[in-house]
């Protein structure tokens, strides 16, 4: 027998610079930050510590000192577990895989309550040095990395192709950055909250053509703890929760680029994954009240929302320009401010995405509340959306 899975609570730190330098007199350390969030999230969830049987962590960056973080934390929290104690790793999808594994443990009955959690500290490592490592994560190290290609360069090539095929422009796509920042201005945990104009976005220094500083994600630290449980336990608690109604995953069998020419900007993986998630949930793309997407750059949000059926093909840029994807519009996208403004502590970013979906569905999103939010979709991905994980969640109040 399988169980339906509810999200009962999600606690998160504001995104930004949390990590302290190696020579600091007083340190902010990953396990203390994490432990406080676990206690806060569990208190908020109303669940019993004795019912927690799975700890599924997003793996830490190599820039944190404590290794085997999951088993270390099981000890730090004095938490024997019958389900799973593990760290997941899957590029940008890392936090999404942690969520998926925690969901499976509850679904299969191995855990009444499961935590999907993690901490991503990286701000003490300069970007150039970080890129020496991140350049090895995308493409083939002996046939692509040798040329100096960076992770976001692949998204930049999506943008160039999209502009070419659909007569879009950097300026049209840049509306996504302005919209994201407006949403972030309403989000107390966002990394960048000062509103920006289209002209300001266009005036930033180029990072990778055609994307400038405000059209690519910032780097930052963050930590999140989500509490999942069996729906019958959630119901009995009498508290509002978000039901995980549908899930879909697909990997297209390509790492960054398909050696067999395809439509690179169709983002087939999220087309397939969202199709499965909608089907399992018994809903359609048009039923979504909002969506919170894993989209590191302006173009990625446009392509992912088109592939999920939230915007028409070739019209995602225009939807951002017209305000259709802004709060109050037809389909608000990334009300948190998204990766560009809420921030992108990469390995836990998908858990921040869950945090926003949860806040919206339990009606705690404050000034950025989507009115009567009942159904929301979320995504995480890796590579150039070579793989996607999509969840559809429903409010139960």
């Amino acid at each position, binding site marked *: 027998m399988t169980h339906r899975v509810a999200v009962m609570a999600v606690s998160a730190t504001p995104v930004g610079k949390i990590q302290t330098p190696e020579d600091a007199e007083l340190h902010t350390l990953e396990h203390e930050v994490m432990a406080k969030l676990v206690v806060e999230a569990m208190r908020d969830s109303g669940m019993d510590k004795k019912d927690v049987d799975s700890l599924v962590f997003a793996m830490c960056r190599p820039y944190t000192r404590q290794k085997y973080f999951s088993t270390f934390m099981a000890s730090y929290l004095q938490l024997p577990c019958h389900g799973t104690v593990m760290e997941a790793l899957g590029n940008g999808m890392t936090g999404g895989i942690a969520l998926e594994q925690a969901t499976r443990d509850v679904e299969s009955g191995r855990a009444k309550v499961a935590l999907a959690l993690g901490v991503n500290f990286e701000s003490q490592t300069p970007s150039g040095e970080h890129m020496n490592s991140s350049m090895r994560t995308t493409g083939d190290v002996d046939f692509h990395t040798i040329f*100096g290609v960076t992770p976001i360069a692949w998204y930049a090539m999506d943008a160039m192709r999209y502009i070419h095929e659909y007569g879009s422009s950097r300026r049209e796509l840049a509306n996504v950055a302005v919209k994201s920042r407006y949403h972030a201005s309403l989000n107390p945990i966002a990394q960048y909250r000062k509103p920006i104009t289209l002209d300001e976005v266009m005036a930033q*220094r180029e990072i990778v053509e055609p994307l400038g500083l405000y059209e690519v994600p910032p780097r930052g630290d963050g930590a999140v703890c989500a509490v999942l449980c069996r729906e019958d336990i959630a119901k009995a608690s009498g508290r509002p929760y978000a039901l995980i109604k549908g899930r879909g995953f697909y990997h297209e069998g390509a790492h960054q680029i398909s050696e067999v*020419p395809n439509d690179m900007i169709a983002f087939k993986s999220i087309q397939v994954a969202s199709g499965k998630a909608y089907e399992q949930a018994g809903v359609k793309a048009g039923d979504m009240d909002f969506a919170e997407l894993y989209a590191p750059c302006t173009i990625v949000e446009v392509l992912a929302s088109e592939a999920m059926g939230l915007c028409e093909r070739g019209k995602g840029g225009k939807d951002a320009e017209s305000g259709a994807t802004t709060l109050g519009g037809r389909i608000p996208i990334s009300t948190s401010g998204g990766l560009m403004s809420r921030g992108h502590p990469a390995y836990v970013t998908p858990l921040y995405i869950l945090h926003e979906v949860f806040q919206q569905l339990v009606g705690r999103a404050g000034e950025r509340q989507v009115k009567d939010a009942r159904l929301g979709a979320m995504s995480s991905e890796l590579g150039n959306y070579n793989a996607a994980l999509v969840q559809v969640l429903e409010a139960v109040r």
Partner: protein
Amino acid sequence: MSMEIIHVDLDRSYPPRPTETTKIFWDAIAAGQFKTTRCTSCGKMTFPPKPICPHCWSDSMEWADLSGKGTLYSRTIIHAAPAIFAKEAPIHFGIIDLEEGIRIATRIWDMEPLDIGSPMRIVTLQYNDGPLFAARKA
């Protein structure tokens, strides 16, 4: 047919590691030849060259010449490069669809921005410590 060989007075920033399979490819590049592996079972070519066929999982592979001709599918200019590549920035990079039906991503050697859809040709970059390849407008 031999490719243009361009001498670059630098060491490669992050050289590839040749294997029994790929050494044959890199030696050919150094000699101005562009080739890859082809499956003798299903007949499909693959790039980068591999000791197995990714399509039918046969391990019977042979070498086949590539024309080095293709079309620019997309491109970018990387201004913020990894520290290891700082001396080579800005880096022009693109995706080329070869006429044999293979998509590759490589350095673009032209410094002026190229139109998507431009005809391209592959060239050898002869660095002081060994070869790389790149694409130029044909």
